[in-house]
């Protein structure tokens, strides 16, 4: 015998369309219009899960988003998602659902042995034990605890769903499509406002879907029809408003067939018509499958055509549950009402009597009886009778769904009259309507909705007021009539009375928390884990807060509530991430030469946002061999390297020279036209910000290059100085990083290469000396030749507009082919600069001063420059500062590693050492491993033999401190 039977008529299911689905491997049937939950109930599945801690059998508590018990893993393989409430899953053909946290099955779960130890597992039990016998004993216990915890299982495969993000704007966002939401959307829509109506259910209508009778359905259908005809109204279903962020930015997550669509809505106004959630009652064994919320039972009956097999008991402390009782009785179910109040309203008594419903006043539930499923209930008080039943429906009152109002920091306010928290206020542009305000009633909801729409329209500056919304033709709303039991701890029957079903928090746990001093509502939550399960306390919070308040002798208003935080319901991480994941996690910046490189044997490496040419194919050489060949190419012949990623900034204006003179530590005011200069800039704090070369193109125009890594920072910094502080300077800066590209032509044969490439250009050392710059015209385009060298060889950089870079590159390769020119990559580029002793990368790490990098002499003595004052702070001038040195490996059979720590020969190898290695390379020129590093006292120790320790690999090597300029100290090659 099953607890529920499917009725032959009624409900919103389509009996003509049968769907097949699988539950724990079993093939079952349902109808179009079912949810997974209703279909399982129709199939007699009452026990659908096990609780978190005690593994008690659990059935559906609700029919909606507040579901605490009925969680499933939905889907298979790379679409499997754990912890989905079955109440929110529309049944589709082929759906695969698996139960969780139970083995082998929810109905027969061997983990239920946990229940035997239940007396130990009270609130905060973890904190009092698992400490011994040793200091780290928790490491022994933890794996067992971890294994027992958790609900569903995560699947390591990549998500098979595709999630998208859509950004949108509207005048009025209406959250919830119950009577209040429909009325609000209709009124706003009629006025011509751009409206988005978001409904979390698969079908719009909210509470209307769970009511019986044609009148309401006709009103719902007519309203929807009018809304759908309005082009300015967008209706979203399976779309949950998850959070409101600053500036009325609302995140609405919508389930689509192949994934989720995240609507990020900028709403001028928001109307919250989010309804209310019913509270359970707290009594012994109130978690037995078959016990559910009265509103849920009404939903299963009216919407899903599921009735208790024969008998139902309704336990309530308010009038709202009577609608469920009457509907059940009309469907032929034998109904008994256990009424907590002394006297329910007279008309209810009369109606109940007419339907043959027995009412026990002053009669809460003492206990439930049965095994895995409910068989009977025992009433408390003088009645103390036992009533057999299939289903127990309970109503402890209603909690307005105030969650979204408090995301912005407004705390809910306790309303004694309805014994619940209501919005404590609304942020600018936000309005409420209906049950979420504590206005429980259909007509009140419609009136509220319309009123909120009018307020929203006014707020939007829309003066056209809509025609009045005609409410459904039903009798007046009845009173809510709640009376909360005076002492929530009047439970004397042994047995667990659950407050938080999913996390197994009982009334006793709340008592324990109180006795141990965890009084604050936040302490209560954190100590007992109440409200922290997947249902986020939707059914448990207020009951628990009221109980704690009672224990403290306070009113719930005085005790306060916890803070509601987004998301409103658990939200898939992938939906928030959208498409910016994996390969598209962050934009990939590519040099203008990327495609050429990709076609010509280049191996790339990620360098921050850039994909850079790392090394090229040398007939199957290993990466280590390839970069050495490329170094040799530059040292002995000529190579071509892509340097397009360098920051490039055009600095123009009558005060451009003065500006640069302030920004760089060295002088730029007198830089002649046609010359470049290496410059270093500091932050205000006197530490090095960046370096690069800047060339003077004309009296009023400079061409600055920055490091690849700092290009964006430097650009903003220059703009900041000009726009916020030095507004009197007539200078404009423009980034050319993307607009221009460049290549380095390096090596002793580089001049010959240029001569071959640009036969008309004069590039002799007289015409273009070291640090000379000239623009030539080539192929109708301006090409800028800068005689700069990063490698230390005779070298040039050739810059030009980005769309011309590849053609120029191919031209140089072709023209200089007789010289054996070949491209070289980042690895060789970086190695060549180490040989030359140019600082870059790890030397420019924001921690080093000019002096640390051996560049102190560059700083102008007289002129002011940024960072000058703080550069002179005590510690930054200390002689024992770590400063740049060159290092040569003295033990050729050993390996030299970046990140090694440096010690003097006689030091004990411990502590912070005297410095560290920043950059290492094989030197083709010296035939040994060399490095750059920072060392205590720097080059004052030149010639000393020191130790580099790499304890991560238990290695130590001997090094000699040398000048960081390993090659061509005099610069003869540069000036060749």
């Amino acid at each position, binding site marked *: 015998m099953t607890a529920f039977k499917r009725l032959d008529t009624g409900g919103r299911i389509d009996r003509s369309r049968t769907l097949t689905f699988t539950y724990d491997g079993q093939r079952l049937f349902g109808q179009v219009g079912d949810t997974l939950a209703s279909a399982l109930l129709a199939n007699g599945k009452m026990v659908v899960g096990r609780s978190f801690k005690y593994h008690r059998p659990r059935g559906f508590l609700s029919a909606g988003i507040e579901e605490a018990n009925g969680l499933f893993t939905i889907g298979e393989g790379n679409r499997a998602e*754990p*912890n989905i409430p079955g109440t929110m899953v529309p049944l589709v053909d082929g759906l695969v659902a698996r139960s969780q946290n139970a083995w082998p099955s929810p109905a027969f779960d061997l983990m239920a042995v946990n229940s035997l130890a239940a*007396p130990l597992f009270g609130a905060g039990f973890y*904190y*009092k*034990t698992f400490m011994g016998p040793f*200091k*780290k004993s*928790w490491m022994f216990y933890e794996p067992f605890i*971890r294994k027992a915890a*958790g*609900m569903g*299982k*995560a699947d*390591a*495969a*990549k*998500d098979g*769903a595709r999630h998208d993000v859509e950004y949108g704007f509207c005048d009025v966002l209406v959250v919830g499509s119950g009577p209040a939401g429909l009325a609000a959307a209709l009124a706003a829509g009629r006025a011509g406002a751009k409206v988005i109506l978001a409904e979390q259910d698969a079908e719009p209508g909210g509470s209307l879907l769970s009511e019986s009778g044609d009148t309401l359905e006709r009103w719902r259908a007519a309203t929807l029809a009018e809304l759908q005809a309005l082009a300015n109204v967008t209706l979203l279903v399976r779309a949950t408003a998850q959070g409101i*962020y*600053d500036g009325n930015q609302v995140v609405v997550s919508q389930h689509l067939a192949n994934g989720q669509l995240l609507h990020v809505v900028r709403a001028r106004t928001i109307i919250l018509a989010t309804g209310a959630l019913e509270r359970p009652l707290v009594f012994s064994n109130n978690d037995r499958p078959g016990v559910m919320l009265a509103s849920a039972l009404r939903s299963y009956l009216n919407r899903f055509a599921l009735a208790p097999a024969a008998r139902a008991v309704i336990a309530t402390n308010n009038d709202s549950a009577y609608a469920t009782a009457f509907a059940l009785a009309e469907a032929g179910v034998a109904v008994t009402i256990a009424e907590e109040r002394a006297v329910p309203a007279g008309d209810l008594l009369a109606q109940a009597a007419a339907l043959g419903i027995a009412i026990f006043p002053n009669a809460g539930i003492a206990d439930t009886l049965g095994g895995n499923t409910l068989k009977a209930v025992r009433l408390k008080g003088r009645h103390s009778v036992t009533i057999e039943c299939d289903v127990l429906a309970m109503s402890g009152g209603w909690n307005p769904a105030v969650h979204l109002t408090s995301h912005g*920091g407004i705390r809910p306010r306790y309303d004694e009259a309805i014994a619940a928290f209501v919005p404590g206020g609304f942020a600018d542009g936000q309005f409420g309507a209906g049950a979420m305000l504590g206005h429980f009633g259909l007509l009140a909801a419609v009136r509220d909705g319309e009123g909120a729409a009018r307020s929203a329209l006014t707020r939007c500056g829309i003066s056209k007021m809509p025609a009045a919304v005609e409410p459904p033709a039903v009798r007046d709303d009845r009173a809510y009539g709640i009376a909360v039991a005076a002492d929530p701890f009047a439970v004397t029957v042994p047995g667990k009375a659950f407050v938080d079903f999913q996390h197994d928090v009982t009334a006793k746990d709340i008592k324990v928390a109180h*006795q*141990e*001093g965890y009084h*604050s509502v*936040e302490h209560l939550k*954190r*100590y007992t884990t109440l409200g922290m*399960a*997947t249902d*986020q306390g939707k059914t448990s919070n207020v009951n628990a807060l009221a109980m704690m308040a009672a224990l403290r002798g306070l009113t719930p208003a005085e005790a306060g509530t916890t803070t509601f935080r987004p998301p409103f319901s*658990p939200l*898939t*991480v*992938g939906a*928030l*991430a*959208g498409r910016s*994941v*994996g*390969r598209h*996690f962050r934009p990939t910046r590519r040099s203008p030469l990327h495609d050429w490189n990709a076609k010509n044997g280049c191996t790339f490496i*990620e*360098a921050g946002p850039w994909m850079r040419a790392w090394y090229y194919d040398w007939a199957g050489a290993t990466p280590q061999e390839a970069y050495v060949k490329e170094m040799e190419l530059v040292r002995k012949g000529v190579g071509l390297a892509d340097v397009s990623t360098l920051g490039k900034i055009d600095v123009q204006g009558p005060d451009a020279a003065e500006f640069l003179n302030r920004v760089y530590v060295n002088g730029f005011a007198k830089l002649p036209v046609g010359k470049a200069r290496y410059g270093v800039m500091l*932050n205000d704090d006197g*530490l090095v*910000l960046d370096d690069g070369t800047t060339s003077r193109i004309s009296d009023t125009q400079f061409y600055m290059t920055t490091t690849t890594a700092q290009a964006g920072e430097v650009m903003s910094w220059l703009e900041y100085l000009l726009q916020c502080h030095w507004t009197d300077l007539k200078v404009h800066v423009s980034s050319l990083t993307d607009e221009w590209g460049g290549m380095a032509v390096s090596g002793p044969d580089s001049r010959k290469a240029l001569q071959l490439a640009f036969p008309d250009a004069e590039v002799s050392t007289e015409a273009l000396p070291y640090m000379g710059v000239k623009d030539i015209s080539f192929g109708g385009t301006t090409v800028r030749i800068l005689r700069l060298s990063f490698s230390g060889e005779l070298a040039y950089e050739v810059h030009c507009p980005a769309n011309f870079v590849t053609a120029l590159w191919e031209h140089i390769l072709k023209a200089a082919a007789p010289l054996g020119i070949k491209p070289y990559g980042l690895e060789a580029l970086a190695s060549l600069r180490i040989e030359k002793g140019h600082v870059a990368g790890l030397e420019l*790490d924001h*921690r080093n001063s000019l002096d640390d990098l051996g560049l102190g002499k560059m700083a102008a003595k007289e002129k002011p420059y940024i960072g000058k004052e703080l550069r002179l702070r*005590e510690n930054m*001038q200390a002689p024992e500062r770590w400063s740049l040195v060159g290092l040569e490996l003295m033990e050729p059979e050993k390996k030299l590693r*970046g990140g*090694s*720590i440096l010690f003097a020969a006689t030091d004990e*190898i*411990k502590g*912070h050492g005297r410095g560290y290695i920043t950059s290492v390379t094989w030197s083709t020129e010296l035939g040994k491993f060399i490095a750059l590093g920072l060392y205590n006292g720097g080059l004052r120790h030149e010639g000393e033999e020191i130790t580099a*320790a790499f304890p*991560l690999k238990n290695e130590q090597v001997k090094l000699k401190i040398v000048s960081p300029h390993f090659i061509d100290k005099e610069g003869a090659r540069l000036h060749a």
Partner: protein
Amino acid sequence: MAKGYSVFSLLRHALKPDTPWGLAWEKPTPKSSYDVIIIGGGGHGLATAYYLAKNHGITNVAVLEKGYIGSGNVGRNTTIIRSNYMLGTNTPFFEFSLKLWEGLSHDLNYNCMVSHRGQVVVAVSPGQLDSMARRGNIMRLHGIDAELLDRGEVQKLLPYLDYSKDARFPVWGAIHQPRAGTARHDAVAWGYARAASQLGVHIIEDCEVTGIHMEQGRAVGVETTRGRINAGKVGIAVAGHTSQVAAMAGLKLPVESHILQAFVTEAVKPMVHHVVSWGAELFYLSQSDKGGMVFGGHIDGFNTFTQRGQLFKIQDVMQCAVSLMPFMSRMRLLRHWGGIQDMTPDGSPFICRTPVRDLYLNGGWCYQGFKATPASGWTFAHTIAHDSEHELNRDYSLDRFEKGGELDEHGTGNWTYKQ
């Protein structure tokens, strides 16, 4: 009433109808005067009070908390403990802290669930791996555990990362500190409170400090919402509100308050067995004992006290999560929240005397305060008790910027909003 917590006492009391446990910490009425007042009932303040009593015998101490204890960052963080620091006293300080963590549950007789599950920091470029090697070497040279892992070793340890061609930033290797891990954050506050209370410290909740009383340049007491309370010495440990409280004594500090968001998903069965951090962007994740993935990223990046974060940063962090660990895409975010961080220009804290006599400062923790809690309390207690810095906190002075003594562990330069 039961006092000591142990499995035996639990068993003894389990079957009794009523709970035997008394208040975890007493709730006394404030006295008119204390030897030491600690402003701020967070992890650092409570730990300081505990060590004042335990290490220095100073028990006439009050901890004043404006809300409930642990309501600030100690209860809002991602619970990571580690000691992978490489500059100055950072290295021994955080290692000392980790050592205190190791014995903390025993010391406090409160299970703080200190889990040495290890932290793996994933490098995404050879240069980054070199930087991490430097850090790891410094750790080893201080007797701290650290291991350098290559890509294959990372894959063995963390099989669920993205090793495919789809990875925007490929895994190059990692540094692993096996003794790093997590602790149960709330338990740390409660455990310190309980242990301090048992030593006689007064823990006074719902008591907001509204002013600092000064006489002849010395701090002599505080004004509170529960009246004036005199003190021999006053210590500040208020994290996000450091500037506000210090201003009551006329101090302007190198601190700005920023929001850091944190995230937790629904609970699933064990999947991630380490703390995992990423080098591509600041991102870190661990799985709590309860089963939820607890994770976070960088600060939002502008001053705020609102405790609510910006959506773009949430999206950033989710993108990190899915890109590093593709399985995260199908996990469901349960909650996200924000804590207010007292950011300093160099990312390092202050535990020090101040220009005002008898007024001491513990702050500027940026987002690394949780792991520091035990050592912070220990050294702050020392500094208050002796009116001088302990060798472990000598670099954490207020005047380090004047002297050029920045401790910039991240190498981001002097920006409170970039640290």
